[in-house]
């Protein structure tokens, strides 16, 4: 049998024919990066390749890197492999990576969601022989409501707070979730304020031409009472910090797929939890896997053991991708890791 197109090493997913890695977690010579989240785009590689749309944020986060851009669906030869990037629908610029060697096609999904959100490039299924899929929410308890329903919930919560002059502070990761929330809310309700980490990312994405509503950045001098009833978007970690003091009395909320679970919602101790995820839910994972036409499925990130067993029961050839920590599923790494989990 021919050598597999991709192998799993202690540095991450590797293509022997092209001598490159995809989203490696230790420094390598050549890294193909699916998107800019910290657990996928790590510092220290010698050469980076990512979509034109993903690069500005990566440069913003990683500083001076030697990186090359590539258009969606543009084919490139690396060694004996042909690679191309295809929209993953996870956040602006995010991609799946297609790798072809001697007629064998493998696809690495990165993080993805199958339903369009109106902001990022919508997910496109890619036919392949083997599909390496994330499964952060690979359990049948996760099924997302349509985005419009969640948008209504967020707007109603914000409007009710604004009516009484209270601020509404929403915890959302600074890259991806924050901009998705911004694109969903009704800017007519009241002013929108952003934490510095969110605003810096907004600036990068606005420069690229992604359309976001007007926001004001929360400077140390900003007086909350000048913005009555404002919606404040901040990274989740800011909600328990001294930064929050200026919004005393605010209603607090989080937007994440994990908010589907009452236990997690209560542990977060915000007033509200909005079930808004940039990952595929249970039906979305199945749809994506079906549409690849792949015979072999490799699962990673999330409830991998359970999801692989389920796929095998359902007739696929499924295996778990070994992870950095000795090959066990690590559900709460997804819960605790800053950005993988949103």
């Amino acid at each position, binding site marked *: 049998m021919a050598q597999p197109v991709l192998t799993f090493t202690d540095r991450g997913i590797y293509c022997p024919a092209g001598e490159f890695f995809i989203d490696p977690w230790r420094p390598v010579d050549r890294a193909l990066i699916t998107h800019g989240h910290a657990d996928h785009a790590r510092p220290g590689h010698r050469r980076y390749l990512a979509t034109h749309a993903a690069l500005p944020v990566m440069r913003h986060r990683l500083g001076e890197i030697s990186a090359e851009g590539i258009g969606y669906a543009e084919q490139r030869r690396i060694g004996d492999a042909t690679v191309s990037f295809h929209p993953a629908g996870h956040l602006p610029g995010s991609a799946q990576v297609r790798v072809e060697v001697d007629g064998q096609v493998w696809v690495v999904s990165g993080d993805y969601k199958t339903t369009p959100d109106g902001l990022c490039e919508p997910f496109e299924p890619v036919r392949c022989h083997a599909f390496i899929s994330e499964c952060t929410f690979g*359990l*049948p*308890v*996760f*099924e997302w409501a349509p985005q419009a329903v969640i948008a209504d919930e967020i707007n109603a919560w914000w409007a009710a707070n604004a009516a009484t002059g209270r601020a509404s502070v929403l915890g959302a990761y600074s890259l991806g979730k924050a901009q998705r929330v911004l694109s969903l809310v009704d800017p007519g309700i009241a002013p929108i304020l952003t934490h510095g980490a969110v605003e810096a990312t907004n600036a990068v994405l606005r420069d690229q031409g992604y359309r976001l509503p007007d926001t004001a950045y929360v400077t140390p001098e900003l007086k909350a009472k000048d913005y009555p009833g404002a919606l404040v978007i901040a990274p989740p970690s800011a909600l328990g910090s001294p930064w929050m003091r200026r919004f005393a009395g605010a209603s607090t909320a989080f937007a994440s797929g994990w908010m*589907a*679970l*009452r*236990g*997690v919602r*209560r*542990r977060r*101790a*915000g*007033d*509200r939890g909005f079930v808004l995820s940039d990952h595929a839910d249970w039906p979305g994972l199945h749809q994506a896997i079906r549409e690849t036409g792949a015979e072999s499925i490799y699962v990673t990130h999330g*409830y991998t053991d*359970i999801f692989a*067993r*389920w796929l095998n*029961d359902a007739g696929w050839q499924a295996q778990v991708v070994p992870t950095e*920590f000795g090959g*066990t599923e*690590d*559900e*709460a*790494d997804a*819960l*605790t890791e800053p950005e993988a989990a949103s």
Partner: protein
Amino acid sequence: MKDFAALFTAIDQTTRTSVKVAALADFFRTARDHDKLWTIALFSGRRPKRAVNTTQLREWAAERAGLPLWLVEECYPIVGDLAETIALVLPPPSRQDDLPLTHWITTLRALHRVDLDARHARILDAWDRLDATERFLFNKLITGGFRIGVSRKLMTRALAQATGQDEPVLAHKLMGGWTPETTSYHALIEAPDAEADDSRPYPFYLAYQLDDAPEGLGKPEDWLAEWKWDGIRGQVLIRGGDHHVWSRGEELMTDRFPEFARAKDFLPTGTVIDGEIVAWDEDADQPLPFNALQQRIGRKTVPKKLLREAPVILLAYDLLEQDGQDLRDIPLGDRRARLTALLDGLPPEAPLRASGAIYFETWDALARTRATARDLRAEGVMLKRLDSPYLSGRKKGDWWKWKLDPLVVDAVMIYAQQGSGRRANLFTDFTFALWQDDELVPFAKAYSGLTDAEFNAITAWVRKNTLQRFGPVRQVRPEHVFEIAFEGIQPSPRHKSGIALRFPRMSRWRHDKTAREANSLDDLKDLLNAFG
């Protein structure tokens, strides 16, 4: 059930007590009387008898969702709540109507009368007619433990707001053996109180922990000191020629403790006494260790041998009712004088005796007496202001418990398991071990005492340091040392270590100690010899 689901949602969407109380009060103003009655019942720990077991529920949910059973069972520990897991995996309802809460409870109660196939059909029918929140609540009604962030105290406060009645009056009305089947909202809440039945106890008055030195309490002569016994707080009622025994958890324990039947022979009707139920060592004239009482608690009917080996008595703290008169408003000093007069001179076979006051002139002297509490099998001392009324619930100011410092050992964590509910996905349940030569011998489990941040840190560590899995239990690298605090220590043939602890918890994470520096089993045996 839409109004009840909306109430739940309002409560669940806030962390503010005032908002929860307002939502409940609003429900008590607008809902149907029967639904109000059931809501009061649910939030005071009363629930419909379980008609379906959780195994059946899982199977039926898997069948309805078109999923294998193992997959539903894998989801359960991750979600942390079976009722919620089932609500989440089921397909959307095919039709929806708005039948009241009471309708669904009645449906559940009626299941007892039909066979398993019919139960199955009715549960599936209910799931098919309820939306996600309603389903979750419906499942909660079946699986029990209706804890959704509303304490009985909050519920009582809301009811007071809605009805204009005083909170303590309502708290008293809600005590006792009523169920929604045996009363109505009108009889329980609205009718004049005289209609109450003879079995109804008074709400217990609970003390706060005294954290500072007692000097701050003022002059010693204003205070009564007595031993804080390690038993079950209880009330013995003698009314209408009958007797009733209630635990603080409002469990009727009359049959469990037949010794109290004789109380009627010694005390007049119309008497209610608050005290501590303890297993009593007649020869030593002091309580037996708590595990003697433990054997009694678990049994609804008591074999003769156990009645001989672990007889119970009430060490009486307070007199709440005499000659049918509620004495709770008169000063403690007067109540104690009446109690002493009532119990002094009773023969030794009477199942009650007064828990004596501790004489002391200075706080220092009391501190010295308190230090001897373990010798008497007491947990510490109680301090009660002599002019205090008998209030209801936990109130600060007049009553304090001044417990002994706990015993502690430094132990190594060897197993970890995930919690459930709010603690789902966090490792919160741990097994600890002590050294015996080069081996670690497990001796205690503990679940509490760490901060959220510490639970997060240990969870991340457990995931990366798992050596082996046994179902949900993970064996971890023996590396972390925790100080384990506990209230009492007893020999126990049922434990591998030969020792049982009372109320063990993690009092400190000993980052400063390596596993090798933890205590040995011999150290624990020394504690057993000194305090057991």
